[in-house]
């Protein structure tokens, strides 16, 4: 088991290194001349060169990559071009706010989609199943800003139930903050509902068709006991993995939702960095998303191993 976990950890580190290379490529190799990009086409060449020197982007690429990565390892995420201040002083508060929004979405979507998926599976082929499946599929493929806009029009402007923006006035109490976060969380919930419900449905159907469920039914257990003790225990296991992999997706969807609802989280930080061509900020923000995703999948795999006796025993060999 320890061997398996170590292997898994090594794989994550390898992926992380590759990811940092890709981000470095997009953030520091492809843009070519950051000084020119910041100062514009009419600035003097000498000014551009001086700025490039200050930013350190006239050094060889290997040196730049090394100083970027070793900086990150030591907790230095670089200096924002735009604000001339450490990226970390913007990134961590923004990440905290994003996680708050993501948590609201998560708390809503997990029970909702599991109940939906299991209900669809128990009514396989009937109307309930078809409605849940088609709705889930349609919702999970509708971009967040589209559903967000429809929600704003209906609930914030039409019915006036909820506020249009996501940020509560400073110093407001927790329930008020929560009220402001509900509308922005719903587009994320809608996107994820389809995926998770689909997996929960597939897992439940697989369990329902298994021999042990047939045995349990034939030995006379009531259906509710069969479902609770034999079906759900087995069907929800793969669902856990899917839920965790969707955490990264959730954080990615924040770019759109936070832009639409004007919420100062990680997503809006990335969006603003992109429009300002603030590459250090952009790189750090995207790397943060990648790390959150990799951590979430790692936790999911470990959890899956710990919860599933078959894999746990196999891994112990």
């Amino acid at each position, binding site marked *: 088991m320890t061997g398996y976990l170590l292997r898994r950890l090594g794989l994550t580190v390898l992926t992380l290194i590759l990811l940092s290379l890709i981000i470095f490529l997009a953030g520091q190799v492809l843009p070519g001349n950051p000084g020119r990009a910041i100062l514009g086409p009419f600035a003097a060449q000498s000014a551009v060169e001086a700025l490039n020197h200050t930013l350190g982007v006239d050094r060889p690429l290997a040196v730049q990559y090394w100083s970027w990565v070793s900086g990150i390892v030591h907790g230095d995420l670089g200096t924002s071009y735009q604000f001339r201040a450490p990226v970390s002083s913007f990134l961590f508060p923004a990440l905290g706010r994003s996680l708050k929004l993501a948590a609201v979405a998560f708390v809503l979507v997990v029970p909702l989609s599991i109940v939906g998926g299991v209900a669809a599976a128990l009514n396989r082929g009937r109307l309930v199943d078809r409605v849940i499946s088609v709705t889930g599929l349609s919702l999970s493929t509708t971009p967040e800003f589209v559903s967000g806009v429809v929600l704003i029009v209906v609930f914030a402007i039409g019915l006036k139930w909820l506020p249009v923006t996501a940020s509560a006035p400073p110093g407001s109490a927790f329930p008020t903050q929560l009220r402001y976060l509900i509308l922005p969380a719903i587009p994320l919930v809608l996107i994820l509902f389809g995926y998770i419900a689909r997996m929960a449905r597939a897992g439940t159907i*697989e369990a329902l068709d298994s021999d042990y469920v047939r045995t349990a039914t034939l030995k006379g257990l009531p259906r509710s006991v069969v479902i609770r003790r034999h079906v759900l225990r087995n069907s929800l296991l793969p669902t856990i993995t899917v839920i965790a992999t*969707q955490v990264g997706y959730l954080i990615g969807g924040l*770019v759109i939702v936070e832009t639409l609802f004007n919420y100062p989280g990680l997503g809006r930080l990335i969006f603003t960095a992109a429009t300002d061509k603030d590459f250090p900020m952009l790189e750090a923000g995207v790397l943060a998303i990648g790390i959150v995703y990799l951590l979430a999948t790692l936790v999911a795999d470990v959890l899956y191993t710990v919860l599933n006796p078959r894999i746990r025993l196999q891994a112990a060999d």
Partner: protein
Amino acid sequence: MADEELRDPLATAPGMSSGGPLPPHDLAASLPLVTAGGTGGAAGALDESVGRIRREQLRLLLRSAPFIVGLVLLLWWVVCAIFGRFFVPYNPVNGNLIQFNLAPSGAHWFGTDSLGRDVLSRVIVGAREILIVALLATVLGAAVGTALGLVMGYFRGLVDNVVGRIVDAVLSLPIVIVAFMFLVAVGPSTQTLILVIGLVFALIIARTVRTAVLQERDMDYIAAARLRDESAAHIMFVEILPNVAGPILVEFTVRLGYAIFTVATLSFLGFGIQPPTPDWGTDIANSYQYLAAGYWWETLFPALAIASLVVAINLVGDSIEAVVIR
């Protein structure tokens, strides 16, 4: 990994498209293939899609309500994309600057935007660019991804390992973020948009194709081809490719839906389709700040257009998947 699991035949909703159990003759038709192949659903049933879609499959499709609804919607947007500019009521690009922010009325069914442009006309013409970009990106992704997946699955070894690691790393970010980052770096244009989305999709498609190829490569017909001394390229593209056409077809329709999703989202963020080309995502980005002022029609109608197109493609794709992979 989640992607692969979603491709699991179990994960597709059987009740969704067929409207009931398969007719017995359809089952019988696919049975010999399954036993001969020994790999079950995906690879076996797919022999059929190679050049001729079976009449029974087509009939199954035409009987399923989600498929028909999706197809009609999709055809409507294709017509708008091709012929839209000939039947729009107003000029979609140059508005009447005096008649701005007009609410929907008999003259302007969907109202006008802040530059006095007719929203209905822009919604109709807006189908064009997004469909072109999404289609080309998906075609590029399917072509490159299929070739890559065949090589990875057939040769295994180093290529497979290296590309596999890179795919994992790229996919630890949401596709929209990857595409966004590269478009910011190189600057947005239609060509880079197609290239970036196409290449990211190629990685995902390569993974699906690789999995399908792995199921094929140890079969007898491959061994026979090797004994005949066929070249690796011949075996990959002539022997294996037709047998993995099914997963590729399904992957194509799924990716097309995501391409629309991605293009629309990137346009909304300002790094997709560039003005003055009429585009739904761009229009929403330009008008959503006026939502609070009550000009909801400028944002809502393009949003509904995107939603209907994405849903249409997914209804069609999902129905095809349910019929083809079984």
